[in-house]
């Protein structure tokens, strides 16, 4: 293409504004976090006086000490780690186990379409919040760690994505194993799983982020303070602005403000996401285009 047209006056003006606009947009996504970082390290007078923008004023790390001292925060962090690890593992197991058979045609697996139909119908229609809650209560999961793990264990959209991915696996690959007398277990384990690693990694990462960020289930299904996951706990702190778990000594009031304490807790909650973010990035495109396949 003709390079010279990019040197025209309008073209250049456009480029300058475009680059500038994108820079500002990009910064707008990170500045709120930097502001919280600055706030969390600033002392009381600076935070309440509104002196803090992007750099800590009279830096102190006391908020982080307070957060880590408060047993309930660390405990909630641990519950979230646990639900994420166990929950994502269970999720991936169920997804793989049902999408592999469903990726077979009706001619190979009788009644496949009936099972598929029941999955799709459950994806498109549901009983709503109240019956769902009453069923979980009836199953005795309320106030147990299972309430955070089991209800989320079968994300139906991900089942559909995974099934579509399995369907694209060339038939020739498994035909050789079938001739060798391999069972379906062996075909899944030795043929399908190894070449599905990108798709599996995508769904695992997105599943883990979903578990880490989940808060509503912890709010309605858990009453026990020791089982509250981190996002649900953070909600009481930053949305409900309930600081009763902290500030036991009167002298603390002089050293840091509620705002700094809230900022510190928000940031600690975000850190795990920031840690996996570079890995997530590698799977963005596959994650979103996984669904856009021909059936």
């Amino acid at each position: 293409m003709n390079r010279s047209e990019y040197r025209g006056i309008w073209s250049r003006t456009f480029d300058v504004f475009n680059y500038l606009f994108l820079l500002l947009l990009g910064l707008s996504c990170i500045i709120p976090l930097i502001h919280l970082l600055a706030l969390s390290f600033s002392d009381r007078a600076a935070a309440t006086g509104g002196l803090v923008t992007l750099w800590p004023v009279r830096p102190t790390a006391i908020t982080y000490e307070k957060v880590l001292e408060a047993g309930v925060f660390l405990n909630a962090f641990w519950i979230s780690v646990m639900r994420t690890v166990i929950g994502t593992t269970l999720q991936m197991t169920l997804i793989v186990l049902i999408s592999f058979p469903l990726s077979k045609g009706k001619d190979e697996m009788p009644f496949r379409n009936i099972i598929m139909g029941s999955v799709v119908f459950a994806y498109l229609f549901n009983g709503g919040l109240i019956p769902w809650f009453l069923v979980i209560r009836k199953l005795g999961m309320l106030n147990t760690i299972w309430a955070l793990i089991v209800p989320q264990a079968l994300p139906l959209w991900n089942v559909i994505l995974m099934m579509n991915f399995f369907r694209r696996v060339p038939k020739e690959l498994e035909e050789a194993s079938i001739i060798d007398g391999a069972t379906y277990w062996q075909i899944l384990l030795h043929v399908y799983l190894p070449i599905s690693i990108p798709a599996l990694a995508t769904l695992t990462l997105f599943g883990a982020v979903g578990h880490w960020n989940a808060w509503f289930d912890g709010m309605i299904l858990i009453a026990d303070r020791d089982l509250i996951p981190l996002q649900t706990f953070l909600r009481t702190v930053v949305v409900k602005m309930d600081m009763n778990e902290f500030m036991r000594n009167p002298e603390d009031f002089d050293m840091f403000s509620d705002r700094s304490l809230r900022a510190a807790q928000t940031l600690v909650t975000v850190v795990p996401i920031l840690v996996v973010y570079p890995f997530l990035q590698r799977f963005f495109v596959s994650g979103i285009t996984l669904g856009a396949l021909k059936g």
Partner: protein
Amino acid sequence: MQALSPIVDDLKEQASRFVRYLPRLWPLYVMVIPALIHLVLLSYYPMYGIRIAFQDYKPALGFDKSPWVGLKQFQLMLENPSFWQIFRNTIVIATSKIVTLQFCAVILALLLNEVRKLFYKRSVQSLVYLPYFLSWIVLGGIMLEMLGSSGVVNQLLQLWGVEQPVIFLGNNRTFVPALVLSHLWQQVGWATILYLAALTSIDPQLLEAAAIDGAGRFQRVLYIILPGILPTLLLVLCLDFGLLFNAAGFDQVLNLYNPAVYSTGDILDTWIYREGLLGARFSLATAVGLVRSVLGLILIVISLRLIARFTDYQLY
């Protein structure tokens, strides 16, 4: 009954194959068992629980023994003026979010496409995708902090000469715009991915031919690139409207709203949660939930039909 006989024959045929090939096929059926148990207990059992919409549910009596009251709950729902209010709010908020987001995402994708320094483009993308991965607790906390009466936004406004602090989230005129804009900010980067993928599939020869014929840089965007991503835009809009009731955004609203903005900000999902779970009006909230689910099902089926007719996209 004659119309059913092909289906019955088909099932019989499948059953006979099932029996014949079971020695080889059984692992496939064992594999689906865990998921089927989950489906029955946590999807279909709650669907059975929808019956309480036609009952006066008593926790002690359960799904099976609570007394039937016919359509009383639906009558209560329709007579409740706040039902029409939240129904309208849901549609207004969802539609504003969908239209704003996709319009801006198309523009952002076009702007990113014009960046020829790859490193710059990648860096901007890394930044704008980030908010998508933060929960509405974190984002809500950030917004409450920054938009509060002594937050950084109001301090900037003060420097600008605005005397009274603006209570963005406690005012019916600003609440919905705040929802739409913060949703835009969270999602716009992520929403460009599909458009950027569509842009890569535009035939470069077409662009070259246009350039030779004298089409300038901006003309190529207008006449080739924009039409090239139009099918993707229509597909996304169609799917979004199919999921209209989800698009209102329960997570976001529940963490940002307060009684002062119920008249514009309260949506079906938040109402169901508040009245049903907090207010323990189980049957009434289930009735409202049923209306939402049925309308949602109709919308998604229409949208999938439309998509199947005009594209080769298939769900399953």
